[in-house]
Structures are given as structure tokens and as C-alpha cells.
């Protein structure tokens, strides 16, 4: 292993090492603040090391990793997301009677898993990254053990994720058995196939099973059933984590190895993916239509957003990957902001998940409400926010490749989606129904770390929405050699 290999792996190493250090630190002395600072420091160092390691790119380390600008870009996104989740988690845990420190260990491990996914090029690293992410998430979801819904969510996630993993593994085994190679590039190769005969049946079957596994993680319809329950049951920071880091990591891999281009559009996978995209967009938005739990709404909306991402991916071409990446970036920032607001509004022992908790928010906390509105509008894709440009890029990518059916579905479902985002907004701007009920939240001052985080996210949402060139060039550079 050369120095540059080491340098290239540095981000991964730093994060995992931080996890270990943190565990040792916990063993020595339990301190919430210290733990949080260590974790944040580790993530910060990881981010820094990205720049440090950038000159050695692109680099293939052993057979497992490919470290290039693309994986680094995604690592950066993941690390940023993690860095932003942590302050919210800190505030959140501060109000909980619970051992808090392990949270950071698990979060760091999960982040590592996601980063591994972003960089992997082999079945083994794919699988290990995925499982690292999943296993850490099992515990994170049920982290607040006093909540029965958390446990329930944990169990559901565990059982389903393990099942989907085994399906995925079976698929991997099939592909391996058909091709004799454990390279992830087999996916790309397999996508050109239709199940005609011979090995290609193995390949296609395997690919479909892999798609089930990935689809489960990204919550494509019909593998989405877990999403709302887990989102609802998991503690808010964990929900945010699932929505951003977990999905981001899996998507990074998905995007890289499931590149759709003119060669493989006719393949079975392309068609299946198109169907999944349409189903996800419609189902997600429909399901969110009349929910009364904001977490569930965001869960369902995440299904739809994954559908949009799939559209970008299916558009393929030079634009598709860039558009998908940009969209993901926008989505991560936005959804973090949304969950951040929810975290900020949650009090000790309860979460601001019910729609009623937001009634008249604007008249109590105008700034928080404005931030939340911004996030919701960004999710809905209203101009000047990140979400709009994301959607714009997706549409452009789709139009460039003439994926009209997908685009049309996207538009229709976006409109449906608008309805429930607006519902939340309406509730926020409505007159407070009963001023007495919300007095607890009224008195709660805004915690500093979360405030900083929210400010940063709001800034990012607007920056992404108004001046995309800043990021777009980097994204294009990173994704150029993919498509």
C-alpha cells in the first residue's frame, strides 16, 4: 500500500478511526459534549482530508475501492450531511434521558459505511458498506429505547433490511456465478441484457435482485413500505440521517454503476427502473397527500424524491448523472433543513411530528417558520430554492434524452406533492388554534448549534437555488467520466 493509496483512503480512515477513538473515549469518561466534539472534529477532519487527498485522484485502491472525484464529491456530500446532522443530534439528545455517546459512534460508523458505498467498486465492499450502514442504523433507529415506536421501527428495519440484504446477496451471487467477476461494473454490463437465454438470464435475474436490495434502501415503490414507519419511529436526527447519509451513500453507488445510456436503455433493467420511477413518484406523493404526521409526510415525499432522482438517472446522457447529483445535493440540504427545524421545535420527551405542532408557528416563531417554509418550498421545487434548480436539471436531463413519459409523471406528481407541502405551510400560517397547548415550545429558546446549522442550510438552499454554477462545475467534472 503506497502513500498515495493511504492518502486516498484517508477520509475513510479518519472517520472510522474517529469512531474507534470515540469509543475509547467513552470507555474512559462519558461526556456528551466531548463525544459530540470528537465526532464533529472527526467529520471535519474527514472533510479536510478530502481536499488534502484530492491531488492523488483518481486512484484505485486494492480491488475494492475506486477513489476519484466522483466518490470524493459524494463523500463530501455525505460528510457535510453528517456534520449537519450532528449538531441537531446534540440538541436532540440533550433533552433525552439516555446514554447519548454511543450515538456518535454509530453515526460515524454508518457514515463510514455510506462513504464506502460511494467509493466501492467490488461486491464485497458494496456489501460491507451497505451492512455497516444498516447495522449501525438498526441501533440508531431504536436508539431512544423508551419509545416503543422506536423499537418497532428498529425491528421493522432490521427484519426488512436483512431480508432485502439477503435478496441482494443472492442477486450478487447470481451475477458472480454468471460472470465470474465481483466487479460492480458487472451491473453496467448486465443492464444491456434482456433475459433471453444463457448467462444473461442469470445476469438479469441477479441484477433484478440487486435492484430489490438497492430499491429497498432507496425506498423505491414497491419496496417502500418500511419508509414511513421507520421515519416516524426513528429519532429525528436519525430520520434525517437515513434520509441523507444512508440514501446518499446508496445512491452514489447506484448512480455510478447503474448508469443508463443509449446502449442499455432497452435492457430489462432500464424498463424496470422506468416503471419503478413512475410508481415511486406517484405513490410517494399520493401517500403523503393527507398525512397528519410531518415525519410521515417527509417519508412519503422522500419516496417521490427518489423517483425524481431515478428520472435523472434514467435520463442518462452527459446531463443525467450531474442532474441527479445536483438534485441529491439539493435534496440533502433541504431535507436536513426540514428535519433540523423539526428537531429545533421538539421539546424534551416529544417530537414536533404532528401537524398540530406547527399550527400558527409563523406567528410564534416567524424565523423558524420562514426557514421551514423555505425548505418545504424547496422540496416542492419553487424557484430561487435549491429544489427548483434540482428539478430544472432533472427536467433538462430528461428532455435532452426525450424521456417524456417520465417527465410528464414527474410534473403531475410534483403537483400532487405541492398539495401536501402547502398543507404544512397553511397550518404554519394559520391562526394558532389554542395558544395554551403550545406554551412549552414557546418558551424553548433556540439552541445555538442547531441555529447555526439551520442558518447554514438556509443559506445553502438559496445558494444552490440562485448561484448553481458554484457547484455545477464541480459536479460536471466529477460525473463526466461516468456517463
Amino acid at each position, binding site marked *: 500500500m503506497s502513500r498515495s493509496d493511504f492518502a486516498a483512503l484517508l477520509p475513510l480512515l479518519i472517520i472510522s478511526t474517529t469512531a474507534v477513538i470515540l469509543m475509547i473515549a467513552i470507555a474512559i469518561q462519558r461526556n456528551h459534549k466531548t463525544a459530540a466534539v470528537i465526532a464533529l472534529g472527526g467529520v471535519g477532519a474527514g472533510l479536510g482530508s478530502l481536499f488534502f487527498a484530492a491531488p492523488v485522484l483518481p486512484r484505485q485502491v486494492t480491488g475494492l475501492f475506486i477513489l476519484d472525484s466522483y466518490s470524493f464529491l459524494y463523500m463530501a456530500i455525505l460528510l457535510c450531511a453528517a456534520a449537519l446532522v450532528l449538531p441537531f443530534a446534540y440538541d436532540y439528545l440533550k433533552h433525552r434521558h439516555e446514554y447519548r455517546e454511543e450515538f456518535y459512534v454509530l453515526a460515524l460508523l454508518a457514515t463510514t459505511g455510506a462513504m464506502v458505498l460511494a467509493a466501492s467498486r467490488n*461486491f*464485497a465492499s458494496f*456489501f*460491507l458498506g451497505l*451492512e455497516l450502514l444498516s*447495522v449501525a442504523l*438498526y*441501533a440508531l433507529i*431504536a436508539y431512544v*429505547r423508551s419509545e*416503543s*415506536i422506536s*423499537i*418497532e*421501527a*428498529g*425491528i*421493522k428495519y*432490521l*427484519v426488512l433490511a*436483512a*431480508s432485502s*440484504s*439477503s*435478496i441482494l*446477496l*443472492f442477486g*450478487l*451471487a*447470481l451475477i*458472480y*456465478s454468471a460472470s*465470474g467477476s*465481483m466487479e460492480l461494473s458487472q451491473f453496467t454490463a448486465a443492464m444491456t441484457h434482456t433475459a433471453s437465454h444463457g448467462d444473461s438470464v442469470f445476469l438479469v435475474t441477479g441484477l433484478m435482485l440487486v435492484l430489490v436490495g438497492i430499491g429497498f434502501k432507496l425506498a423505491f415503490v414497491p419496496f417502500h413500505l418500511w419508509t*414511513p*414507519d421507520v421515519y*416516524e*419511529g426513528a429519532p429525528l436526527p436519525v430520520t434525517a440521517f437515513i434520509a441523507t447519509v444512508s440514501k446518499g451513500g446508496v445512491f452514489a453507488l447506484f448512480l455510478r454503476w447503474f448508469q443508463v445510456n443509449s446502449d442499455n436503455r432497452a435492457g430489462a433493467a432500464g424498463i424496470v427502473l422506468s416503471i419503478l420511477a413512475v410508481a415511486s413518484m406517484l405513490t410517494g406523493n399520493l401517500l403523503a397527500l393527507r*398525512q397528519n404526521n410531518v415525519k*410521515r409526510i417527509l417519508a412519503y415525499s422522500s419516496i417521490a424524491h427518489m423517483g425524481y432522482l431515478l428520472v435523472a438517472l434514467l435520463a442518462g446522457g452527459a446531463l443525467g448523472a450531474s442532474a441527479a447529483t445536483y438534485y441529491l445535493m439539493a435534496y440533502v440540504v433541504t431535507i436536513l433543513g426540514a428535519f433540523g427545524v423539526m428537531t429545533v421545535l421538539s421539546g424534551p420527551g416529544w417530537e414536533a411530528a404532528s401537524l398540530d405542532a406547527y399550527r400558527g408557528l409563523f406567528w410564534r416563531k416567524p424565523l423558524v417558520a420562514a426557514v421551514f417554509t423555505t425548505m418545504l418550498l424547496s422540496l416542492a421545487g419553487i424557484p430561487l430554492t435549491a429544489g427548483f434548480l434540482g428539478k430544472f436539471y432533472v427536467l433538462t436531463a430528461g428532455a435532452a434524452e426525450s424521456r417524456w413519459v417520465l417527465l410528464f409523471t414527474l410534473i403531475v406528481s410534483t403537483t400532487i406533492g405541492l398539495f401536501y407541502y402547502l398543507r404544512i405551510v397553511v397550518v404554519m400560517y394559520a391562526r394558532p388554534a389554542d395558544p395554551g397547548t403550545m406554551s412549552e415550545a414557546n418558551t424553548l429558546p433556540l439552541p445555538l448549534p442547531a441555529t447555526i446549522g439551520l442558518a447554514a442550510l438556509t443559506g445553502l438552499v438559496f445558494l444552490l437555488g440562485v448561484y448553481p454554477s458554484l457547484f455545477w462545475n464541480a459536479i460536471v467534472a466529477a460525473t463526466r467520466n461516468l456517463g
Partner: protein
Amino acid sequence: MLGLAGLLTRRNLIFTLMCVEIMLNASGLAFVAAGARWAQPDGQVMFLFILAMAAAEVAIGLAFVLLFHRTQLALDVDAASEMRG
């Protein structure tokens, strides 16, 4: 397949976990078989990783079993349907 069927059928959480194990094992078997086909050790390596993952999985899974048993005094997975809709 059987594991999956079991997963769908059994309501006892322990059985559910067992079924998951069966499925994982089957995947492992598939990997080893594939590795054997190409005469590569990679399949077995994969199996090892699967093994490790299964262990971790079971550890957390059983922790859940205990936790769940403690809160619900039963192992009925269908009882864990507080959240729906």
C-alpha cells in the same frame, strides 16, 4: 425461499430472525457455489463477510427481541404495528 416464506408466515420474532438467517445462509451458499464454478476464493471470502454480517445482525436482532419482549411481553411481530397509514 423457505426462509422468505417463513418470514412472511411466522409472527414470532425469533422465528422471523431465524428465517432471515436461513435466507442469508442461502445467499452464502450461492456465493460459495459461484466461487466454486469459477474456481476462485472470492466466493468464500464473500461468505465470510456474510457470516460476519449475520453475526452482527443476530446480535442486534436478539437485542431487539429482548427489548421487545420487555416492553410488549410478547414476541408477536404484528403487535409492532403502532405506526401505519
